[in-house]
Each structure stands twice: as structure tokens, then as C-alpha cells.
């Protein structure tokens, strides 16, 4: 477990082998798109139509694309703040 008051290295690449890299728990956000576009589908498929006659599955997937982009950008900006963009 990494304590939050530990000095944060600017880049873990330069941190050297003695410092264990900071965990990237925010990467768990990347699971959301899969829950949205895969796990939720049986429930979504039961809804049928919205706004009159628009298939809900289509609307759900369109929002899913935006949610996916949102999750990735959140991860990207946290990584950028931490200087982790080049970290493998």
C-alpha cells in the first residue's frame, strides 16, 4: 500500500528500482465501458423503444461511446498530472 503523504516521483520511469511505482487505481475506470456495452445489455434490451420509436439499444450504445471516451480522458488527465503518460 502506498501512503498518500509519500513523496511522489515526477516520473516513475526515473524513479529507479528501489521505489515501488505508485499504483494506478484510477485505471479501474477503464472497466466501466465493458460493463456499459456488454454486461448491461440484457437489461437494456428489455426496455425496447424510447422517445417514441427510437430503439433504446441504439441510444444506449451512443451514450456508451461518450462514456468510454469520458473514462479514458479521466484516466489520461490523472496520468498526465502524475507525469505517468510515458510510463508503461
Amino acid at each position: 500500500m502506498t501512503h498518500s503523504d509519500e513523496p511522489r516521483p515526477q516520473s516513475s520511469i526515473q524513479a529507479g528500482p528501489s521505489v515501488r511505482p505508485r499504483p494506478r487505481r484510477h485505471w479501474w475506470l477503464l472497466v466501466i465501458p465493458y460493463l456499459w456495452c456488454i454486461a448491461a445489455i440484457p437489461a437494456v434490451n428489455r426496455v425496447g423503444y424510447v422517445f417514441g420509436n427510437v430503439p433504446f439499444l441504439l441510444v444506449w450504445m451512443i451514450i456508451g461511446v461518450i462514456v468510454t471516451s469520458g473514462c479514458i480522458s479521466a484516466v489520461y488527465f490523472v496520468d498526465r498530472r502524475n507525469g505517468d503518460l510515458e510510463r508503461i
Partner: protein
Amino acid sequence: MVVAIIGVILVVGSVAGGAFLASRGTKVDVQEWSVGGRRFGTWLFWFLLAGETFTASALLGSSQAIFSGGAPGFFVLGTVALAAPVGYFLVPRIQRAGKVNGLTTMGDFFSARFNARWFGGLITVFGIIALLLYTRVQLTGLSLILETLFGTAIPSMAYVFAGGFLVVVFVFIGGMRSAAFVAVVKDILLVLMLLIVAVGAAHAAGVDSVAGIFDEVRNMHPDAGTLPGIGGHASMNEWWWMSFLLLTPLGAFALPHAFQVAYTARNSAAVRKNQIIQPLYSLFYVLIAVIALAAILALPNLPAKQANGSLLIFVASNYPEWVVGLLAGCGVIVALVPTAVIMITASSMFTSNVLGEIKPSLKRSLGATRVSVIVFTLLGVLITAFNSEALLSIMTGVYSAVGQLAPALFLSFLWRRTTAVGLTVGAVAGGAIVLVPALGSAVLTAFPAGTVVGLPALVINLLLAIVVSLLTKRPPVGAIAVGMPEISTAGVDADAEAAASLQSAKSL
């Protein structure tokens, strides 16, 4: 006539323009030709990767899926989106490995990662077969478009050959750089075209607004809006959707040209920023959905055999000639760019990892690479000309077979203990399950109806890869570092891994 003239001007203009822009001030060697000198920043890389999103087959295949089934075709919105988070994790690793170790192909990577050139060679052969299947999909799309452009008076085989010829010319001019430059033109044109067609779709379908399209489709086919769609085939149910979308993002990066494209990136930041925009690009598929739904209304009696070309037929029979010409020209470029990338990949792989093993002087030979382009394009043309199926089923098939390379890809970056023998055993078993129908259906009995065969095959593949890896000799430390450099996450992984191998050693 107008159609053909506009189409030809569009294609020649953008290919020539792209090649001109690409050729400015660069000396062409193999590295320049095959991975664009590893200098592409966010934007150029975006368009090249997006080229893989919007391919002729993806456009025609998705409109076919919506046209003939309704809701199942909406899956296409998920394929691109779900590949992006995987890309965020994976592509920087591929890019880094390529840059640090001077790799130009997928085969190079696997040779280096396991210090086993036979393994790189094997991956190359498997990969080239997959690429040829994929080429077939693109060329089928291309010939469909040419058929719309020039009519059905000429046999479709001639169109496939013409398509192959176009690809060779295109690739010879400038390699990966010209592909990237033309990709920019292509995407802008394509989006414009889709907007024009979508705006006219309601009118062409005989209703007064986009909402009217949805109303009428529901009226005609009440089951179109939910899975399993029009006609209610079990093969397009919720299980199909879930297993297919789970498999697709894994398979997307196992295609060898994903490596090729990853190597063109300048750095990890460019790749990662790219993954934010990439999914948004697939929102343009909404336009395709609207157009395909309108086509259901406008072409109620189209034979199922022609569903492949429903998008083209819809436009050809309902829009002014200049729109048809623009769309056809645009469609040709849309097929050319990805096919060119595939051909660059297949020929670089073959020269570097097969020819280069036999005769080392040829390993970095641009001449040999170019000759391979001709050979592979011809092979792709022959495969296409003598065997045609519905586009979507080919796509599913390719992804399922190629998806079997996914464990090799992921484990190389995640697990130090992975061995080449383990991955080979796993991939062969998985590939057999996908490609031998008897094996596939036997395995599928344990899964809900509708599940894509690639998924259970992948599970068996992965289990075998892990077990056999633990039983075989681990690769040398230097080779492991190709995929897993420095300490990074090794602290945690190594402990867990040691415990896991102890556990399994005991249980064995």
C-alpha cells in the same frame, strides 16, 4: 458516366495528393516505408488508426447488419469504443518495445520477446493468413463499390483484380506515410458523404423526417429495435452480442497490422491521447444506422444475397448522380487505405521474419518487401475472386481466428513466466476450435446458444498457454525485458507469480 468521372477524379486526386505530401523531403528506407520513421504524432496517428475503424468492410458490413437484422447491427458502435481502453493499456507497450529494440513487425517482437525466432516466424505465418482473410473482406467491399461505380456489365472478378491493382500502385508510391496522408483525406470526405446521404435519407425513404424513419421501421418490423432483431434468429441474441463484443477488442490488437500502426507513433503520450478521440469517431456510425434503417424502407424487396451492398444500392437508386459518384470514389479510398496498411504489414513481416531467416541479407531489403506486396495482393485477390460470403460472417470468422493470438499478445506484456511453447500450444488449440466446425460445436454445447465460438476457444487457449508455460523453460531475462522493461509493476507480479507457480507445481 458522371458517376464514374467524379469517382475517378476523387480517387486519383487524393492518392496523388497524399503521395506527394508524403514524399516531401524524406529518404525512403525500410523503416521509413514500413513504420513511417516512427514520427507520427497524435493527429497523423489518429487518422491512421481511424483508417482501421472506418474500413470499406466495416461500413458495408455494419449497414448490411442493420439493414437485414435491425438492432444486432448496433454492435458496431461498441467495437471501436471497447478497443480504446485496451489500446490505452496495450499500444504504448507495443510502441515502446518497437522503439527501444528497433522492431518493425509483429514477428520481430515475438522473436525478441522469447528469444525464439521460430516463434516469430510462426506468428508471422499465422498473422499473414489472418491478414489475407482480412484483405478478402476489404477487397470484396472494394469490388462492390467498383461495381456500383461502373455497373454490373463487367464480371465482378475483374473488379476484384482492378481493386488489387489499385492497392499495389498505392503502396508502391509511398508506403506507410502515403497511407497516413491519404487517410486524412479519406476520413474528411467520408464524414461529409455520410452527412449528405443521411440528410437525404428520410426523403429517399418516403417519410418526412428522421423520426419518421424510426416510426415506419417499427411499424413495418416491430422486432427491429431489440435483440435478436428482425426475424429473431438465435444467432444474434444477447449472448451473441456480449461474447462478440468481449472478443472483438482482444482480437483487434492481435491483428499484425495493429503492431505496424503502433510502431508509427512518436511516443506513448500520442497514443494515449489518441484513445480519447478514437471512440468518438465511431459516433459517425449513427449516420450509418439512420441510412441503413431508411434503406429498409426504401428497398423492401432487396434479395438477401445483395444485402452486402444495401448501402450502395440505396444511394445509387435514390440520390443524384454526383452524390453516387462522390460516395463511390470515397468508398474506393476507404477500402484502399486499410488494404494498403495490411499489405505493407504482410510484406514487411514476410521479408523480415521469413525471408530474413532464410537469407539474412534480405531482412532489411526494400526491394524484396515490394515484391512481396505484389505476391500478397495477388493472393488476396485470388482468395477473394474464388470465394465470397456475406461480409459480416467473414468478419466474425477472422476476428475469432485472430483473437486466438490474444493470449500471446497480452501475456507477453503481463507475465514474465510465459513461454513460446505454451503460447503456441494454446493458439493452435484455440485456432482448431474456431476453424474446425465439429470441434467448435462440441465446445459450444457448454455455453448459452448464440455465443461466438472464439470466446470458449480463447478460454481453453489461455488455460493451455498458462499450464504449458509453467511446464516449460522460461525465456532469458534479456528477452523478457523486451515486453516487460525495468521493474515497473514487477514487484507485485513476481511475488504473485512465484506463489502461483509454486501452487501449480504442488498440484501437479
